[in-house]
């Protein structure tokens, strides 16, 4: 018998702590598959932010540094400068990157640090119980925007992939989604491209992944996938916002 589908080598055989229906697991699998395909796991170091992503070391059989909340891009900067031959990725949620860590992500991107950042945008603070994040959609009810996010008081949802794409140091900035097989395949290609940017020393790469948090959205996993398609994508358009094709920046 030929095995046509199996667990990637770069994903441990373990039960995750993620809620049933959560798309973090899909993102993890895609990163693991890509590390396998590129043969980089034994020289890759992962840096999770704080939140649901923090247990990254339980799932990837690679070296891991646990960063303070929002600071993963700064930690990754120090690490990549110290070990330019290693592949360094940060894995951040939206509270981590788009709120407390905006300074660190913008300046790491602007310096063109040759690192890769995976950004899980599920529009809420997941691990702490579904509070409003900078990425929460207008009108979206959360535990700290119980009447719905109102731009007059809380401002507008922040578009990280577009914002980062404006910085000269960025080699690759894209937004993908994890709610359907077609989109998952697109996300896989983006993850591969991001790692390849780093391998080819092109500069900073970021993949924003629209994700679901059915637990904190208070809906079923299936409904959450539909909500992502129906409510997130119109505000957060999918696509590539920056892609460097040569080392024209040198």
């Amino acid at each position, binding site marked *: 018998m030929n095995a046509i589908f199996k667990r990637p080598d770069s994903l441990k055989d373990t039960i995750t702590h993620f809620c049933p229906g959560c798309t973090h697991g899909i993102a993890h699998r895609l990163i693991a598959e890509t590390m396998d395909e590129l043969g980089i796991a034994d020289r890759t*170091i992962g840096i999770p932010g704080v939140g649901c992503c923090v247990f990254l070391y339980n799932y990837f059989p690679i070296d891991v*540094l646990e960063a303070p909340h929002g600071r993963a891009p700064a930690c990754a900067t120090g690490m990549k400068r110290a*070990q330019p031959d290693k592949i360094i990725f940060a894995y951040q949620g939206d509270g981590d990157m788009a709120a407390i860590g905006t300074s660190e992500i913008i300046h790491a991107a602007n310096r063109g640090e040759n690192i890769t950042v995976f950004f899980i945008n599920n529009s809420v603070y997941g691990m702490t119980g579904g509070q409003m994040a900078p990425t929460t959609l207008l009108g979206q009810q959360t535990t700290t925007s119980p009447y719905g996010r109102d731009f007059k008081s809380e401002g507008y949802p922040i578009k990280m992939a577009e914002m980062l794409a404006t910085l000269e140091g960025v080699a690759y900035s894209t937004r993908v989604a994890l709610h359907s097989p077609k989109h998952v395949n697109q996300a896989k290609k983006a993850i591969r491209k991001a790692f390849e940017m780093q391998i080819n020393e092109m500069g900073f790469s970021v993949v924003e992944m629209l994700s679901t948090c059915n637990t904190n959205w208070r809906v079923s996993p299936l409904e959450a996938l539909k909500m992502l398609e129906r409510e997130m994508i119109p505000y957060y358009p999918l696509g590539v916002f920056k892609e460097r094709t040569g080392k024209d920046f040198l």
Partner: protein
Amino acid sequence: MTEKKLTKGNIALAEGAIQAGCRFYFGYPITPQNDIPEYLARNLPKHGGTFIPAESEIASINMVMGASASGKRAMTSSSGPGISLMQEGISYLAGSEMPAVIVNIMRCGPGLGGIAPTQGDYNQAVHGGGHGDYRNIVLAPGSVQEMFDLTIKAFELADRYRNPAMIIADAMIGQFQEPCRLTPERPVEFPEKSWALTGRRGRDPRLLKSLYLGDYEQEEHNLFLKQKYDEIQENEVMVEMQNLDDAELIIIAFGTPARVAKTAISLAREEGLRVGLIRPITLFPFPVNEIYEHSARAKNILVVEMNTGQMVRDVRIAAHKDAAIHFYGRPGGGFPFPDDVLGEIKKALGGGAR
């Protein structure tokens, strides 16, 4: 080997870092420590090192963390408000057991404060500063030569104990010039780093973390760290002691006030007053045994600090119960001149309550 060069304190410290094998510096400008990053920006590249002018002190300390996690010697320096911003990262370094050297050329505070010589950050450095139950190794240079030597020592201790080491100095020590030997006294130690994150090739994956959620895991971790701190207390105390054999009063001071105290002690001895000095060089570990033994006999202690009374509390804990403890403090850039200290010596010996 013994050739000395007139050198500024901050420059001696920066050169000490290079000689200690530090090749990664990340920092943000703040007076009165700017000579350090400026020297390293010029000189680290000549040694194949990396200098990043970071976007903030928060980023600086986290870049230090990334380089340190890679097994490299890394440093940042700042002052007052900048050191406050680094406390989160310092706590993570301690919790995840990563070495790093953090330099604080102190500013007067609270708040933005002034830039005159001061020692207002003793408590922040010695008693935590960041969240959680941890200790920094804290070194307090009292001369330009010690700015050089103790920087090397700080890297060695940080690596040996996998713990952040902080150097705190007042702006006088940072800014003045003295003849200084700019080569290490002995070969610099470089311990193996079997914990460094270098990619798992040829070995099992490694992890540096400070989150412990399982039952009693955090308690176990904290008790493990406590054992380490006890070991540091046992083995690493550094202290200068002078004129203690016949002393009826001991001045306890670190940094610039200890230098002033030496002059005051000479003046006092000319007048027949038997005064000695204990100068803690390590503030953690604190020289508790030395203070206890000598205070049991001398019965009088005068603590001189450039603050409103921070180290004096640790002296109270360490001193013999029968010792009378006096305090003279000049906070916020005020300066304790030798005549002032002599006056305090006379007051203390004239009788005073604990």
